[in-house]
């Protein structure tokens, strides 16, 4: 056969070149090329798998460590498992009346999505300004302009003696720290600040509509009465809704007023 191959050049149609690896005696004197390639491929795969394994283990460790959380002093945090509030370090679900509903400033752990999540509440004091509700759009939007006030753009209040008064008001509020209120604030109300804003505006409107304009200007018990009206409204909300708004507030003096 060998002799035939040598005799017949590549132009011969019956000529079939024999692969070098298949040639008898090719591996003589050293490792066979097939074994060496297989070994190299195996080594490469082992290295890749080892690297992949390390990466996966690192990912798991990072995933688990990222579930550690701290509750700082002005914060409240809830741990939720499948949407239900559970204590920080317990596998038991939350039930009403349990003291560990709200997590105290401490360290806790949770298993991240999709099992558990941590809800954060900031309990530091914040301010709520009624800037535009009872204030004209421009300073010209008053009696001086002679055009009256546009209901779409200019805010004002009508006093008990049917006069017009402009007012800006500021309230301070913070999230109540009792468990039920904190839970309610975060999980039972879409926007507690917006509701508080409307309640404050309604309380102001109600109080001013019962006072003479001069008494409003002189601020005779104005803030105390607005504060009382606001508290009454929040209590009514809590009674009707079956859950608190979760905020405690107090009214400040108006920064500016005008009649």
């Amino acid at each position, binding site marked *: 056969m060998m002799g035939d191959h040598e005799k017949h050049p590549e132009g011969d149609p019956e000529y079939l070149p024999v692969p070098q690896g298949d040639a008898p005696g090719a591996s003589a004197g050293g490792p066979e090329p097939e074994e060496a390639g297989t070994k190299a491929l195996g080594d490469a795969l082992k290295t890749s798998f080892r690297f992949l394994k390390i990466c996966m283990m690192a990912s798991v460790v990072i995933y688990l460590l990222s579930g550690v959380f701290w509750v700082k002093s002005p914060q409240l945090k809830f741990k939720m498992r*499948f*949407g239900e509030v559970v204590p920080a370090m317990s596998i038991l679900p939350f039930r*009403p009346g349990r003291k560990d509903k709200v997590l105290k400033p401490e360290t806790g752990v949770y298993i991240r999505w999709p099992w558990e999540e941590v809800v954060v509440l900031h309990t530091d004091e914040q301010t709520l300004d009624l800037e535009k509700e009872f204030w004209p759009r421009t300073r010209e939007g008053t009696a001086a302009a002679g055009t*009256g006030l546009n*209901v779409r753009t200019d805010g004002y209040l*009508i006093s008990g003696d049917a006069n017009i008064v402009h007012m800006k008001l500021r309230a301070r509020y913070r999230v109540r720290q009792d468990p039920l209120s904190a839970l309610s604030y975060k*999980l039972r109300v879409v926007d507690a600040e917006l509701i508080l804003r409307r309640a404050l505006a309604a309380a102001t409107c109600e109080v001013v509509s019962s006072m003479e304009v001069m008494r409003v200007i002189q601020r005779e018990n104005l803030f105390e009465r607005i504060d009382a009206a606001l508290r009454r409204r929040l209590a009514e909300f809590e009674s*009707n809704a*079956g859950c608190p708004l979760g905020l405690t507030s107090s009214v400040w003096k108006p920064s500016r007023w005008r009649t």
Partner: protein
Amino acid sequence: MREKWATIVVVGAVGLGLLMYLVVYSVRVSEIAVHKRFGKVIQVVRPMVGPEQDTGDAQASAPTGVTVVPEAGWFFKLPWPFDTVEKYDQRIRLVDGRLAQIQLADEYQLIPRVYATWQITDPVAFEKSLEGDVGFAEKGLKDIIGNQTAEVFGSCHLQDVVNTDREKLQFHRIEERIFEGVKASLTDSDQAYGIEVSSLGITWVALPQGTTQAVFDRMSVERARLAEKHRAEGESDKETQIARAEAARSKTLAEAEADAKKIRAEAETEAAQYYATFAQAPNLAIFLRELEALKKITENAAESKEPITFVLTTEGSPWRVLKGDALEEGASPEPLEDVSSAVGVVESAEGE
């Protein structure tokens, strides 16, 4: 073998996860869910927080034949297409009513702005009547609030809305009437909406633009009248105060004058007595006065704790020895005189 077990565990975990995804659903505290089997509601999950959880409110508000679970968490279901679960946000949200000009019973025009807070309480009815669409629900709620507001304000007078007499002011009562009306509209209608209003308030009562200008004009006139009144009162008060001050001044002056006369008369009487005594022994009187003066000086010095500096003449004994020519003159020092003698010398020297 070890690799095989690892593969089995991984595949098993993935398979279990997929199975759980198909047969388990979770409901957050803030959500409300309807669990249906072949389109029929079999369970409602309505988690509650707080006291309401123990009162059984959830079951009471549920449609008949439907189990209500008042807790959040995870629940089993059959995979699609057997079971389906619809979830809605059951948190309380806020809606503002539309601004509309309303004529009161006394023909005044007002533009009240009303807000309300509401939430989904019956997801089945919500889905059925409002197609589970929050936007659609808010639109309907705005219509209901607008209608109730117009109805209630239409039966009120301006004095009910703004009044300095708190007994007659009906502001809060008006809010309550609108609130009751809205609640009744949501529950008493043939088709339940599945939503509940939890509070309502009037955030603003506005006037038509032309009316505000009229109010401004009236206020301007009232202020001018008030200013004039205060000015007149001030003038009147000023006159009164001036007259009162004048009277007080005259009275005080007269009293002071009378007191001065009385004191002067008493002093003259007393002085006359002293003069009579002085006239009997004038030198002794002067000597006593000077002793008294010296006593006062030393007392004052003692009180103020300051030293007294006496400036004495060297012409008298014994200070004449301090003079340079005392020995030359051969004058022997005179015996020390007592104080009264020294005073007498000084006095005589002064007299010379």
